[in-house]
């Protein structure tokens, strides 16, 4: 009998994030994510939509290695996201992560928060004494200008409005010169106008660098408007994945 070996999943060279039959759990009993299989191509704007508690945030944590799957495999740039994996450590600095609460250090200024994105590549000892290379400082100025905060660089994070804080979080992620940005409900609590401004900002940044964005959304309309692909998660399972073309929506599972 002839044995035919075929790879379980085809990984194209375009793929940057690959998940195969991934299960995740916080307590080892209740699975937050079940049987998640997805592949995200380089440069794609990928949206994950679902109700709260559906496991969307957990999905992002699996990508940047803050959490390990209980079953299945995750690869990011062909590396397993795990802090113990030395090859992944090099990739970590290229993954921008914006948690739902943004994770800004409230007693530091917008500029200092932005500069933190450069920490993995600057001199460790000098950074402890708050000495950053001039090139990094001017880069931070440039990014803060791009996100519209040129007049508020010296404001402490706690003095900024909700929309401004999100801009700082984006600036920090961009400061990493990222390949991937993971953003968890970054516009959920904002009014319509501000939400669109923030989304435009990310779209604008994506044009400049070949960036893969994985963004968790609450609002389906927003996801459809800005993403190339949308995955819908319900109770930990991916129930739908659609590709968004210019004017039509293609269901990848049915091909219609």
């Amino acid at each position: 009998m002839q044995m035919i070996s075929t790879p379980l999943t085809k990984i194209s060279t375009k793929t940057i994030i690959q998940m195969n039959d991934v299960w995740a759990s916080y307590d080892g009993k209740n699975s937050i994510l079940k049987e998640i299989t997805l592949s995200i191509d380089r440069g794609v704007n990928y949206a994950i939509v679902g109700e709260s508690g559906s496991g969307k945030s957990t999905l992002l944590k699996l990508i940047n290695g803050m959490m390990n799957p209980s079953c299945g495999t995750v690869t990011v740039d062909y590396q397993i996201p795990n802090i113990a994996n030395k090859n992944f450590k090099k990739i970590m600095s290229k993954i921008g992560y914006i948690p739902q609460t943004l994770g800004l250090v409230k007693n530091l200024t917008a500029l200092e928060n932005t500069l933190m994105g450069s920490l993995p590549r600057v001199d460790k000892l000098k950074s402890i004494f708050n000495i950053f290379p001039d090139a990094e400082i001017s880069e931070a100025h440039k990014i803060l200008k791009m996100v519209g905060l040129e007049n508020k660089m010296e404001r402490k994070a706690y003095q900024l409005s909700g929309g401004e804080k999100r801009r700082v979080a984006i600036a920090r992620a961009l400061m990493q010169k990222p390949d991937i940005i993971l953003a968890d409900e970054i516009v959920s609590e904002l009014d319509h106008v501000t939400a669109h401004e923030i989304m435009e900002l990310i779209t604008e940044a994506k044009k400049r660098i070949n960036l893969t964005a994985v963004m968790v959304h609450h609002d389906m309309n927003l996801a459809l408007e800005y993403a190339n692909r949308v995955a819908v998660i319900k109770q930990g399972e991916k129930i739908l994945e659609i590709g968004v073309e210019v004017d039509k929506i293609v269901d990848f599972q049915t091909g219609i």
Partner: protein
Amino acid sequence: MINPKNNLIIGIVVALVIAASVNINANPADFVNGFPKMVKIAEEMTKVDSKLFQIAFSAMFETIQMAFIGTMIGVAIALPLSILAARNLNSKWVYAPIRALLAMIRTFPSILWAILFVIIVGLGPFAGVLAIIMYTIGFVAKLQYETIEAIDSDPMDAISSIGVSKSQLIRFVVIPESASHLLGQMLYMFDYNVRQTSILGLVGAGGIGYYIINYIQFFEYGKAAVFMLVVLVVVLIIDWVSVKIRDKFIIKSQRGLEMKVKQK
């Protein structure tokens, strides 16, 4: 007091207080009998010897300096220890021994440290300063590691997920996030240390307490009163100043707002 169980608990507590008082011979009758003596002391104390104010102020100045040195050096040593003692930053093998050491330091009240240092370095303010340093290390390190363990985990996660070193994480997240608490603890500790240092003179470790104990031992209550009055005034001033500093730097950064003080 609807629940009869509560009444029972109160009854038990009252019974325990009475039983313990009988046990240690604490008799309220002694207080009543001794009351005339208290009146006499109060009367003596009103005979304030105003010539002594100059000495009292210079002794108080020495006390404040001792408390200042002790607080600053104590905090400077406590800060790195608190980082090592925080459970969210270190493995068990690091934080457990540090915590045990800090607990040992805290076991001694500052007056016992003072006695110990008087034996080691001799009489005088230096022994007092060393005692204050030890006391400050024990307490500030504990308060500070508890603060570090309670800081918001989101900035910690967000920054550590991009692959920064631990020292960078401490410098850019842990210290800024806990800095306002540290300032509060420093103020509290200085305030407390001024009062502590005022009594360290009792064991010969310098400061204003030396004068107070000497005058009281020779029943010169009027003279002791001068020194006590100076302590009172200075402590009130320090209290007032630290409230102002708190309002300006701490409350705002903790809440992100200016606190509204209720106006009468």
